[in-house]
């Protein structure tokens, strides 16, 4: 929700900037207009870029550390063949047939400073990839990719963003055995991804 609101707010802001750019483009005489035009294009581009990034934020969930954020389970369908189901609240059930013996989950996290936490801003995360190992073959499945062609997290991560208010982190779990009917709980901690086997039987 938080990230929806934030994304929405930035989107609105971006739209304002775009409108400002367009207004600058159409008004005024052309002598100054050429300079203005360049500036306007820049401002418009900035707005579009910002809006693009905001759309990407929609795919992130607010993160509460040390609490279960998802469950994942595997139901055997054949030799080394399993139906995997990943269940996250408020998200479409992600289910896929996978082949292999071992799996590993990764998540990207936006970490926020204590000051921002004080303003009610929560860290955000997105489970991004599931890796499956079969023999010496490794396959990777995107759980959620950036749908709008702009990957804000990847850009910030690549730039090694050092702005102290928001930083990026990539958490990868240990390799775990694929086990029939066993359910795993996924917990994000301050330092990584903790995955524990749980079972609903008594």
């Amino acid at each position, binding site marked *: 929700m938080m990230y929806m609101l934030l994304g929405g707010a930035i989107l609105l802001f971006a739209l304002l900037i775009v409108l400002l750019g367009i207004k600058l483009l159409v008004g005024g005489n052309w002598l100054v207009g050429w300079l203005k035009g360049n500036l306007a294009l820049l401002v418009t581009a900035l707005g579009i870029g910002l809006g693009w990034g905001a759309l990407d934020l929609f795919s992130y969930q607010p993160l509460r550390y040390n609490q279960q954020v998802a469950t994942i*389970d595997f139901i055997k369908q054949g030799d080394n063949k399993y139906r995997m189901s990943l*269940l996250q609240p*408020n*998200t479409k*059930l992600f289910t896929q047939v996978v082949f292999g013996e071992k799996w590993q989950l990764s998540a990207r996290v936006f970490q926020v400073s204590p000051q921002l936490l004080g303003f009610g801003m929560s860290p955000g995360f997105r489970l991004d990839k599931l890796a499956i190992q079969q023999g010496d073959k490794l396959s990777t499945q995107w759980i959620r990719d950036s749908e709008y062609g702009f990957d804000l997290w990847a850009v910030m991560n690549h730039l090694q963003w050092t702005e102290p208010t928001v930083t990026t982190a990539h958490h990868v779990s240990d390799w775990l055995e694929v086990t029939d009917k066993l*359910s795993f709980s996924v917990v994000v901690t301050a330092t990584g991804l903790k995955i524990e086997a749980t079972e609903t*039987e*008594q």
Partner: protein
Amino acid sequence: MFAHLMDNLAYQPIWYTDNYIEADRYLLFYQQQLVATESQQWLWPSKDLVNHQTVVPLARYQDQTLFLATLDSIETVESVQLIGLRRAMLAATTNERQLLGYAGHLVGWMEQHQYCGRCARPLQWHPIVRAKQCECGAPPLYPAISPCIIVLITRGDQVLLARSPRFPEGVFSTIAGFIEPGETIEHGVIREVAEEVGITIKNLQYKGSQPWPFPHSLMIGFHAEYDSGEIEVDGDEIEAADWFNLNDLPILPSPMSIARWLIDDYIKESYNQSS
């Protein structure tokens, strides 16, 4: 006793006589599975309700009146997904889990009890209480609840855990079993322990209970100390059992199960004693 068991129930059961005639939201089930939207929402506004088989009042929950419906088909409900009750409960919050467990129990009962056991005519809803009845005059049929004991047996730093053949690989849990007709709860515990692992216990202490809809059970949880005997696995209900040191435990049941509460409670207790 587990302190959290004294917290209020997350919902308040309702029936036709409780004056909540209008539903705010519906819980939908199809073939014992929970019907959810693509984004995991399972409290449906009434307009989305179609083609239901049975609709009954369920509960007041977070200031809303909930009804329970079982569906004949889900073809007409757009973009839904079915989630098994166990999976849904694992992913739910504590409050949601209570509600889902309750609803799941009722759904199971509604589907299993549709005809009179005496004259085989279709059963009708009782007008005043949540029960089914038959025009032949057979006594009203209430939702069945099966009492089931569950016990953690300890010996100093060790706990006795066992695995059933239906458990996933590597999972061990406490001893459990249904009470038989004519038995007290205490006799049930002693008998189950003797049958499944062949030992005797002492200092039986009640710890708490938990409704468990897989199927229609009420788990009655105990702690007991080892008294005598060697572990002898029955090979039928239990395929392996052993003493596990608290520092070296196998894969345990989910933290949502009373089996796990019993184990965690003992770990905490031992930790407090040693520090």
